[in-house]
């Protein structure tokens, strides 16, 4: 129990929990909204779809370490392209990964880049379940686009949305590779999330007791979305 007292009294612990919640909520919400928008937009036939769709999926397959390190270069203040591109539109340079204010935001951006395709892919697959008869009937009845989306598309999508959001939530809690490669949790602990903090405690500070306590905290945080997901999957079979 002493290990738990120690980590709960530690102010870093509170910061890390806060970072984790910000990271998980903002990545999952943004990825879901963009993914849904894209899926609705691309759910039709157009020229070049067979080439463009796989290009959009690409980020989620690519080795996260390679992604993280590439973004580390892109974010570099002195020589990276991002600062230069922003200066073209008249924005002053931002330190990105080197500033305590923006480090976590930079990580969130990488996560969004890599995992929005997942939301997109799952929701696009979900849109195939929307019955064309219902859509046609609603058009005959003169439903507006918004009404059709709210009352027909959304109910058909509910299952896919639940699965996509839950899987992303669980994986966002586990985020490690991107954090290690882009910011290493810094500056200070400003972009450290639980899974990375556990690693730091165990293998850099060698306080195994706190690390084990920390991983239990993470476990219980994940348990809630997990239970929801399992119930969902169980209903399906």
């Amino acid at each position, binding site marked *: 129990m002493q290990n738990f007292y120690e980590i709960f009294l530690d102010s870093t612990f509170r910061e890390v929990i806060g970072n984790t919640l910000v990271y998980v909520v903002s990545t999952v919400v943004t990825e879901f909204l963009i993914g849904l928008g894209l899926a609705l937009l691309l759910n039709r036939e157009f020229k070049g779809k067979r080439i463009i769709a796989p290009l959009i*999926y*690409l980020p989620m397959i690519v080795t996260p370490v390679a992604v993280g390190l590439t973004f580390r270069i892109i974010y570099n203040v002195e020589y990276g392209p991002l600062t230069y591109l922003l200066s073209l539109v008249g924005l002053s340079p931002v330190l990105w990964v080197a500033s305590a204010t923006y480090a976590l935001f930079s990580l969130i951006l990488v996560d969004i880049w890599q995992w929005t395709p997942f939301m997109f*892919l799952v929701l696009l697959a979900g849109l195939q379940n929307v019955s064309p008869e219902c859509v046609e009937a609603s058009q005959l009845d003169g439903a507006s686009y918004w009404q059709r989306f709210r009352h027909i598309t959304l109910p058909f999508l509910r299952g896919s949305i639940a699965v996509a959001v839950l899987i992303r939530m669980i994986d966002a809690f586990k985020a490690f590779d991107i954090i290690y490669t882009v910011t290493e949790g810094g500056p200070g602990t400003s972009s450290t999330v639980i899974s990375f903090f556990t690693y730091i405690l165990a293998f850099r500070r060698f306080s195994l007791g706190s690390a084990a306590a920390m*991983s239990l905290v993470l476990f219980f945080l994940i348990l809630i979305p997990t239970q929801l997901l*399992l119930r969902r999957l169980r209903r399906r079979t």
Partner: protein
Amino acid sequence: MAKKGWRHRIRDLAFYIVLAFVLVFVLFPFYWLVLNAFKYGGGGYFSGEYFTYPPKFWPSGLHLDNFQTVIFGGKFVNSVLPNILNSAIVGFSTAVIVTAMSTLGAFALTRLRFKRRDDVAFFILSQRILPPVSIIIPYYFIISGLHLLDTQLALILTYILLNLPFSVWILMTYFEEIPKEIEEAAYVDGCTAMSAFRRILLPVALPGVLVTAIFSVITCYNEFMFSFVLTYSKAVTLPRAIAQFVTIQGTLWGEMSAASFLGILPVIAFAMIIQKHLVRVMTMGAVKG
């Protein structure tokens, strides 16, 4: 009518503009990675074409010196070929073992009757949800106690654990789609459960089995955390080797980009093969693509 056609065209134009924006956002990091790999590296910490402002948005030529350093080793870096080999050995061994185990497991969980079958299935699935970082500490001690630190075997054992639940679960969804009547006919003709599995079910389910195996290879290949903690020199896999280009002295941008570029090529190739099944494998069969 003419007015409608005009409206249509505006809408199409807007659609393609949005699409172009999305593609630029998605592809820019890839472009930057490839660009950096082919810039002139110079082989040192602050050499090459990387340290200019504004940065160069296209290469001054097709320079291959980064690839040469990465493949044959250079002043500051070792060759990554042994790391690629490690990744390949670990990935394929894991995929073969996991696929063999999970095919049998999924067969039992979908076709055989035994007590609390569904609970066993959900117990297996729940392992997928366990945060890996919470088992990494005990795992480190187990592996070091067995004197297996920095061996390929340690990684293979770990990756089997990480991949098995998900493989079993996906294969179950594939098997459930195959009608039981085909096998029942085989049972009537005097087949045992094992030979019905081998002669009837397996050939029909083979595409699903291959997809699962390929996806296991991809996950092992991309895995970083366990490789990072459990290996340090002989058994280092490619992702961990790529991360080592970030050093206290500085980051070897060119070498890192070249190694990352080499590293993602096989993943993309594998992903192309299973493209149509991606939704299903990534959602563990909960959403059919």
